[in-house]
């Protein structure tokens, strides 16, 4: 870890001002930032502690949704009564990630800003375009079991590691941010980026911007939902593939379907055209298989991770079956 200066901001304005200096970063939960600073993957020269800013409440919005303060802890969000009852998909997704300890530390805003867990990103002795633009991608021809199959580029095949974000993508949340030039709202689908030729940028958040809240729309899909996470051990592991599935059903007919995939791309993966295939259709395994095929259109494996393509298809089918409660044990 390199030396840094440290200040504590009491409000958003101060925070934004202080983070504007070269090499400055916010710190809140710290669970990923300090992890990466210790191995020199991240090298901020100034940290602005934002934990004292009053962004730690969950409130109902006029639109009938919920506003999650950026500094609410992941655990407090997952166990919040309104989240549990109205957005159980989000609750389940959060609890599928990390551990009780980490969820007690990590904040909702920070969860969005997790860096990839790519083996090579984490090892400064290997080339990595995300860590060091232009140095090359070691993963494409190297070990890539955990890495992406969708939306990759020749420069990067990293995945976004969050579970919470997969649910937020399915729920079509909005991210509220404040920067030097004021406030703006970013639809969740536009928050994270694909690697393209700028893999060092994970999201569209500007360096001087702070996430203030995450807004959930009214529709919570509390009746028919599933978060299915597949990983290499039963807990405390990142997803190989995860599926957030949410359905609005009328009898056995799908009124609306939302599907987001985790562990497969640089951002939570959604294909609205594929979701639309279910609209007005019967909730059946056959129809779910069609959606799954459509979802994985264009997927490309890199050797060790080829299995994810078929796994993701099967996971989508299973998740939709569970969401419709065709599957007894949800």
């Amino acid at each position, binding site marked *: 870890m*390199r030396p840094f200066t440290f200040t504590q901001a009491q409000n958003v304005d101060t925070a934004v001002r202080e983070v504007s200096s070269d090499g400055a970063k916010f710190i809140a939960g710290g669970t990923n930032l300090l992890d990466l600073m210790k191995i020199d993957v991240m090298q901020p020269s100034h940290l602005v502690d934002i934990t004292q800013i009053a962004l730690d409440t969950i409130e109902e919005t006029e639109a009938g949704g919920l506003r999650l303060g950026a500094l609410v802890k992941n655990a407090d969000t997952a166990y919040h009564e309104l989240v549990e009852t109205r957005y159980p998909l989000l609750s389940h997704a959060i609890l599928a990630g990390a551990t009780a300890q980490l969820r007690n530390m990590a904040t909702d805003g920070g969860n969005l800003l997790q860096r990839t867990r790519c*083996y090579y990103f984490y090892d400064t002795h290997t080339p990595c375009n995300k860590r060091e633009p232009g140095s090359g991608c*070691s993963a494409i021809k190297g*070990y890539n079991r955990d890495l992406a199959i969708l939306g990759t580029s020749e420069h990067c095949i990293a995945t976004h590691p969050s579970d919470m974000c997969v649910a937020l993508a399915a729920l079509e949340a909005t991210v509220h941010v404040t920067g030097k030039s004021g406030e703006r709202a970013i639809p969740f689908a536009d928050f994270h980026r694909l690697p393209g030729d700028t893999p060092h940028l994970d999201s569209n958040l500007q360096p001087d911007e702070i996430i203030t809240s995450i807004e959930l729309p009214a529709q919570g899909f509390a009746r028919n939902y599933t978060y299915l996470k*597949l990983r*290499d*051990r039963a807990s*405390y592991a990142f997803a190989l593939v995860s599926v957030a599935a949410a359905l609005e059903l009328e009898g056995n007919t799908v009124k609306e379907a939302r599907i987001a995939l985790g562990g497969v791309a640089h951002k939570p993966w959604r294909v609205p055209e594929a979701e639309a295939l279910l609209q007005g259709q019967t909730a059946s395994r056959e129809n779910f298989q069609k959606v799954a095929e459509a979802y994985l259109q264009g997927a490309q494996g890199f050797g060790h991770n080829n299995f994810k393509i078929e796994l993701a298809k*099967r996971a989508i089918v*299973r998740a939709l079956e569970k969401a419709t409660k065709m599957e007894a044990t949800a």
Partner: protein
Amino acid sequence: MKEHYTGTATNRVDGRAKVTGEAKYAAEFEVPDLLYGVVVNSAISKGKITRIDTSAALALPGVHQVFTHENRPGYTWLDSHYQDEDSPPGSPFRPLYNNEIKFSMQPIALVVADTFELARYAALLVHAEYESQPHETDLEANLPKAYKPKKYKSPPPSDPRGDAPGAFAAAEVKLEEAYAHPAHHHNPMEMHASIAIWQESGKLTIYDKIQGVQNSQKYISNAFGVPQEDVQVISPFVGGAFGSGLRPQYQLFLAVLAAKELKRAVKVVLTRQQMFSFGHRPFTIQRLAIGASADGKLESISHNAFAETSRFEDYNEDVVIWPGVLYNCENVEVSHQLVGLDVYTPLDMRAPGGTTGTFALEIAMDEMAYKLNMDPVEFRLKNYTDKDLNKDKPHSSKELKECYRQGAERFGWAKRKMEPRSMKEGHQLIGWGMAHGAWEAQQQEAAAKAVLSPTGKLTVSSATADIGTGTYTVMSQIAAETMGIALEDVTFELGDSTQPKSPLEGGSWTVSSVGSAVKLVCEKLQEQLLKLAQKMENSPFSDAKIEDVSFENGQMFLTQAPATSISLQAILAQDEGQPLEAEASQKPDKKQKNYSSYSHSATFVEVKVDEDLGTVKVTRIVSAVAAGRIINPKTGRSQILGGAVWGIGVALEEHTVLDHTIGRFMTHDLDKYHLPVNADVHETDVIFVEEKDEIVNPLGAKGLGEIGIVSVAPAIANAVFHATGKRIRELPITLDKLM
């Protein structure tokens, strides 16, 4: 009534220290004026350092020195000066020896500073330039280069018995398959750490994470040319090791180097990532060819192993002894060959060779059972051996059949249908599998010292270790029972190189070796007590021989006339209140030579495998173990439970993955190297099968450190086959292999 401490479930005597945080592990001793050392590791896997610039690190106030190959003090040259009790044949690695890089993450510098954080920062500023050379890290690609080492670390593979190729050719039922066991890293929870304290006198006091303090003591003495008596190594608590502490690791060498040069106290703790920069269980490919008659009699077994080793040492382990130990077959040939790669030397890891060899052999035998359409237990019974056919010696005891019987009964094996995919619950395919295993019960020479205070408190010591195995507790039990005093009146001390000589804490031999020495030294004390009692005026013991007296409840008495008794304290009062001391060394008895001694296990497993998603859940494990006398059924059970968890890790999760392009282990932290977590472990049942053995050692105990792991992974793999009909011969069995 004599208290039978041995054989009784007993809480750990060091339990309180461990649950309060008072137990001190190597990095935790409070030392004044301590400096912190942080290691810098090589970025490349083979080549030379062409330039190493430490100026930026040294420029930081508070950085005392950066040691590299360029400024390190002169070393002694001989290989023998760097060899330790667990060295394989070859030329041991010497940290900072020269500019040559032999493996990825090789230590290339040690930064020493006032604080840990400063040393960690300064380590980032050490700038190294390299000239890379082509490396080879791929075992499979280099199989044609396999060789038989000139010298084997463990006994060389047995000579062929009978004519395996001929018998195989003629066999009615045949199996020929290859099995791959990946590299694993030990990953004890405590990272390797050493504190070296230089004293004005030139003496060194060292706190080290090690499975044998005298091994570190001798190593440091030889490597640095310091007389052994000037090196004291202390290690009262070890936060797990599983073999990683059998050899002194490089943090010890570097801490001592810095302490000597700077004439200070220096602490070096490896990072979790650096825990992947030294020994590991080697990637091993095994080819098995098995022939049997149609009625299930084994006709031939060929078992050939190919394992990685480093370029500088020939590591091997007992991968191919298991056919001769476990199966009655007249035609057997085995071999163990090595492939030299640009990696660090592999290192014994829990049941070295046993875990690897049993995995392949026991899956292959399950495959044979299916070819023969025989129940896997019945097949094993049909080919049961009372003899160790490698050595052509009878077993000193072998209750494996009882392990099958009791294990199968507890598990409900009789209800099993042979056919794969025959049980299902929703999407979950249910499978039942079994395997058996063995581990050698060895006794090494060991010594112990006992001091009985005038107040009747007994302190026994030996330079062994407790890596979680329960050494403190079982030695206290053995001493209390032998002396006939209360357990609370016994203190067992270990982990100090000044204590009586002990072998490395490994190989499941500590109870057998050190326990036997503890028993002997207590018996010596008893002889002295009798002599002292005989000096008393009108002593009722004057004509008694040691065979005539017994010790119970803090008293010595005539066995035939228990009323004639005297308290130990009263005897000691004779000697003007001097404590009584004895020291004894116990060697294996000659009669052991005519026998072979192994502990045995039979493991039965239930798995649930998702038919679409390939996820595996081990829902039930029953392990039946015959290991002679169980000194402490409580801590012993914990060892077998732990072995079962290891088996889950081996079967389903653990894998240190090498990227051959860069020659580097890439799963080098606990996020990417998966150890089993709480949610992976379900119903686990341990049965200790009664087994009497008067030959194996004076205690009749065979040791429990490794037997708990060996048969678990193959039993899981066999259960997965039973569930899915898919035979996975390459570990770990991850979901992608079952989709």
